[in-house]
């Protein structure tokens, strides 16, 4: 007498696994740093990069179509810069020093971004008003700005509402 409960479970488990594995294959994006891209100039499709806009020239045109070109480098200091090309509206928060998340393809020299998200300049946590710092001031939970995590992961806390996120 076979147990219908377990059969139902197994059927659904198999169906879900198949769905998940095929979808991951199709849509997973590797998260890379600018340094990794620049030092290994090979073609990559479907990647995500978290980086900082450099002070090199940002060029933007709206006629005959939108085209934005700028440069980014890793958030950690002193890295090489990478040219980025984005065919869409330039977010008005995009300027040198801002952090962005890019998703797109890399052809060995340039990153063609299909999605561009900019970070709002004010983070959720800001330094508290202090007129003088005491030595050995204990750190309080909730005061981190998350910078070290950003460098490691290369992704960002985003608060921009400029609508440059494009739909799947």
């Amino acid at each position, binding site marked *: 007498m076979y147990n219908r409960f377990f059969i139902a479970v197994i059927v659904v488990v198999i169906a879900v696994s198949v769905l998940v594995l095929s979808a991951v294959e199709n*849509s*997973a*994006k590797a998260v890379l740093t600018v340094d990794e891209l620049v030092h290994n100039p090979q073609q990559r499709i479907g990647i995500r990069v978290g980086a900082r806009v450099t002070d090199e020239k940002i060029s933007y045109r709206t006629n005959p179509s939108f085209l934005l070109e700028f440069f980014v480098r890793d958030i950690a200091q002193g890295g090489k810069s990478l040219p980025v090309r984005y065919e869409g509206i330039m977010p*008005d928060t995009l300027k040198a020093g801002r952090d962005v998340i890019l998703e797109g393809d890399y052809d060995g020299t340039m990153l063609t971004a299909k999605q561009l998200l900019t970070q709002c300049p004010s983070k*959720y946590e800001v330094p*508290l008003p202090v007129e003088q710092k005491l030595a050995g001031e204990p750190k309080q939970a909730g005061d981190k700005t*998350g910078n070290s995590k950003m460098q490691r992961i290369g992704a960002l806390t985003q608060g921009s509402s400029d*609508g440059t996120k494009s739909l*799947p």
Partner: protein
Amino acid sequence: MIVIGSFTLATAWLVSLFGLIAGSWAAKRKNSRLMASARNSVIIVGLLLSLTFISLGAQFLSHNYRFAYVWKTSNNHMEPLYLVSAIWGGMDGSMLLWALMMSLFGAVLMLRRDGIPRDILSWIVPVLSGATNFFISVVLFLTNPFRLIPSQIIPQDGNGLNPLLQNPSMLIHPPMLYAGFTGLLIPFAFCLAALLSGNLSDAWLHLTRRWTLIAWAFLTVGIILGGHWAYIELGWGGFWAWDPVENASFLPWLTATAFLHSVMVQKRRGTLKVWNIVLCTLSYTLTVFGTFLTRSGVVQSVHAFAETDVGWVFLVCIGLIVALTSSLIWLRWNELKPENTIESFFSREAVFLFNNLILVGICFTTLWGVLFPILSEAVMGQKSVVGPPFFNQVNTPLFMALIFFMGIGPTIAWKRSSRAAMVRNFARPFLFGSLVTILCLFIDASRILPAVMFGLVSFVLGTLAGEIHRAARVRREFTQEGVIESVGNLFLKKPTRYGGHLVHFGVLVMAVSITASTVYKIEKDFTLRVQEKISVGKFVLLLDTLEEQRFENYVALQAGVRVLDAGGEKVVGYLKPERRFYARGEETTTEVAIRTTPTEDLYLALAGLDSQDTADSETKGTELSKMSVSFKVFVNPLQMWLWVGGLIVLAGTLMVLGPRAKVLSTAQELADERAKTGKALRAAV
């Protein structure tokens, strides 16, 4: 400076600790005096936390910037309502709100404890106290909102709440969500109390039904409100981004929905007992997991609070819950044996099981997507992410299957459905659904999934209509009622059953809206100068005016856009999207303009001036009429019905919760019902 709030917070911590220790002792030793004392402590904790919350609110309303949290999340410009919402605008206050709501649910349960068997009640108290004490500990020791700023000089003004959060939705969306999350503690408390006491009759199940429904209702409303807020506020034209924090609120909703359904199977057939315990535990655990995700920085999200150390504490809590529940299930295994088995796949219990498995499946896939960055880095050494395409690809077929089963479940018989009954109930709706699919494919052969979805929705509508038709016809055989009157009486006399049908109908409406607004969405980026126009779908947009206005803490770029019909002649609307620049923090927000009709939403977002020098505002005044400005426009078909569908779901839930609903409250009543024939039983559920 010490205010009442810090004192009541610390006291609440002590009292809830008492409730946990004394309550456990009293339950074990069956000491009724100590038990009463512990029970009252739950109520007292609710009072104390309310005082704490009010005290914190007073600091906000009086702009008391001595407190770091008040300084961080408010400023002098904010109106009183937003000051109130700022209480939960940051980490500290939101954790306090969580603890407060949890304690209030507990207090209300203590005040309305009639009908709860003594042994279960005695264990509920320490569970409630323990859970509340944990969250109070987090607030008191890790994220204390009454911490003072380091400076000796009191600032004149605060830092201010992120302008994105200064929105009426901030007043309701977080509290609704938190009410949903914390409300799920109650069913879990019942479940754990049943395991601890050994009283594993079905008593715990139907005692919790009302509470589960209430928590589920809050959670549903909270999630839909969040989607609505994202839609009207953020400017990217959508309402759900599969963002990790959105997903975190969705996971417990899925298991709670599954639990609401599988409870009925245990009531009717005495099976799926361990499954129900697992689902109930999972639902509460996933809310704690969600708060972990939001606050640990482990995944990056637009919603997340900044990375803190707080997150990992929640993992410990989850570990404890899982360990405790698993060992108790092991201990009580013999009392959890099923009374029946699932005899046929063509039965309601089998369909409910499929419904459950699919919901849990969606929960799993969503969790997989959220954790994928961590998993991929751990397993493959390369961190990868998945986005909306992954979630949509995996979950769409699962949702479609869910809709299909939604059509079968309410109608198919318990235990085993005969072939004749299946044909009678499902043949015509199936035909109807197939015809709709074929028609859709005929109109647009390239869109297969939407065609199938619309066909499924039609199938379910057909079964629903059939149900109501058959039931009304039976009524009219015995009464002199007209058609409409009999249908109305069905809803009035059996609100539990027909409220459920209404909820399902609301889901169908939402499904149609989501399909239409996602698949047939038109999106366009464009630039215009004043008096220029562009055509989008069946509209023509003409930029009428472009102005700049200064306000107290921001400068607004305002566009006046005339909406014309396709011919460009008749004016059908006027939209005024805005872009706001806040000097403090250099932030910008977009104020979207939406023209809503039953057929579609025309959604217009102002992206900004095309020049790069957005900071310099003096020279712009005279030149705005010559400048070009960029827009994002969306045409979202049937968008409005998503919110309407949500309201229908809420209405149906309220019907089920309403006073006329007959909810079985004792195990004896249930046993009596089970002994009777099928018809009476169906009425009860």
